[in-house]
């Protein structure tokens, strides 16, 4: 799978705002299997870029293509197919089912198109230090724990691209390292691409390309 950005820019940005950007207004191609790191300060459109790539927002100029198909032509059904099989995501704001348990949050994603068996959930939770939270309600978890839940959730499906929007903002260095290792391990199994947005360069990511927004 390939994702191409063809001169895209948020429609609410002025051209002079992004003249130095390596993404906005440029043609950029992301290929399966490569690790990309998008670095940018606050307000430069990192979350907007992730949402544009995932098809959640359309307030941009230019085109985004999934395998030469313009995603502006996709309906909800078509997006659901891509999200189920090819693209996974960790949102900056986590987007968990707060009234449900951690396990329910993870199972609902795993069951959609099982890539791992249910034991893998416990295994991953143990790896990231939240095994004892599995039966707890999500709204009783700290932001750091919620971020780890969101990361595990994104790894329970098949994918060619994994979009990570400031996924470690609430994690300390040790936990970031563990989470990054798990992400890289899972991406490697699938030969998938990682597109990671963050405020600063994450040393733990072995990125082939670093793009500055």
């Amino acid at each position: 799978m390939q994702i191409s950005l063809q001169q895209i820019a948020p429609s609410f940005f002025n051209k002079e705002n992004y003249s130095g950007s390596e993404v906005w207004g440029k043609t950029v191609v992301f290929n399966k299997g490569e690790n990309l790191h998008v670095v940018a300060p606050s307000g430069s459109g990192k979350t907007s870029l992730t949402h544009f790539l995932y098809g959640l927002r359309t307030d941009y100029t230019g085109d985004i293509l999934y395998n030469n198909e313009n995603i502006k032509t996709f309906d909800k059904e078509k997006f659901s197919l891509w999200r189920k099989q090819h693209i996974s995501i960790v949102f900056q704001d986590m987007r968990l089912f707060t009234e449900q348990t951690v396990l329910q949050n993870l199972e609902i994603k795993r069951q959609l198109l099982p890539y791992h068996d249910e034991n893998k959930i416990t295994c991953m939770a143990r790896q990231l230090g939240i095994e004892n939270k599995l039966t707890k309600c999500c709204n009783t978890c700290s932001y750091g724990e919620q971020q780890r839940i969101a990361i595990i959730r994104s790894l329970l499906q098949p994918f060619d691209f994994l979009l990570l929007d400031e996924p470690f903002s609430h994690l300390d260095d040790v936990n970031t390292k563990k989470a990054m290792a798990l992400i890289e391990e899972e991406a490697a199994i699938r030969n998938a691409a990682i597109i990671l947005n963050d405020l600063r360069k994450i040393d733990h990511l072995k990125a082939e390309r670093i793009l500055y927004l």
Partner: protein
Amino acid sequence: MALSYKNIAPFLSAGQNRLSRWLSYTGLAVGVLLLLCSIQMYVNINKLLKDKNPRKDGYDYISVTKLITNDNMAEDHSFTDAEIAELKKQKTVDDATPLLANKFLVKATGGSTIPFTTDLFLESIENNFIDTVPADFKWQEGQDIVPVIISSDYLELYNTVFAPGKDLPQFSAKSISSVRIQLECYTAAGTTKTFKASVVGLSDRINSVLVPTAFLQWANGQLAGPAKTNPSRIFIKTKDANNPELLSFLEQKNYHVNKDKTKFGRVKQILQAIVSGLSGFGILVIILAMLLFSFYLQLMIERSKDNLQLLITLGYSPGWLSKTVAAKWTPVYAIIILIPLLLTAIFQWIFQQFAMNGRDDLPVYIHWSVALIAVLLLVLSVTVNYRLVKKLLHKL
């Protein structure tokens, strides 16, 4: 394991608003019961009153004569051509025709099958005023056999009063046609002309012994001479025999109306109207219940909006979600419709067994149309429900 409603159930606030959910279930069941029972009763009424309604194509046919009182007994009670024309002119009268009567003496003898002799009268009327006109109700000069239509009341009277008293055989409506009667017609001079007569039909509408007009005109001319006599009975075709305007006109003219035959039809019409009204009420209740249920669904989806939105964001297909959420209610609808269907079947059995004392002409089981309506209601409920859920989910 394939995904099912069970997987997404914890993410939907289905447990909320139990009262409105149960109210809509009850409303739907009551509405369906009313509708199914009304349809079954409509079928029952049609079956029970089937052969007794002389009303045809939306018209009543009534017989009009001049009222005979002590004061006018000596007067002529026949209708003049002008009076018939005046009757025809009335807005409430769609058609009017005289009943021609015989002007000669007629005697009927039963031959060896029914050994009796009686004086008889014959009448004729335009065929379109007769409720049942068999194909062989025709006569032309030279024809030996005269077809006759008699009132079904006469056959009943013969079977129940006359035949047992005289030790004569009784006849069914079908077997009466095989009886050959001899008609002896006398001229004023006393000579006789004999015809064979055969009962070809029974009339629920006209209380008379009817022969083809061609025969009576010929016989009157041949046997009684050319002198014209006016008819003393007129038949009126009207949309409503109880129309006050018509009744007031007839009363003002001092005409006597024989409406007994139309009363039964009127009762049936009123019963059918009541049952139709009940069906309408049932449909209204069903619509209200479905509206209430749709509010409940909208509320449920509104309350689960964030979760449903997140499910779609995570890759759940809106189409699959619509189908799965809607399918959850299919067994509920099936039960809600099946219970009234069973109750209708029980009511029909009770009605047939106890209220109608097990009458053979009324079936013990519900009519197929009732079951068909139940199936259609189920399909309708499920479809409406699915479309509503789909619309609500696609709006998210």
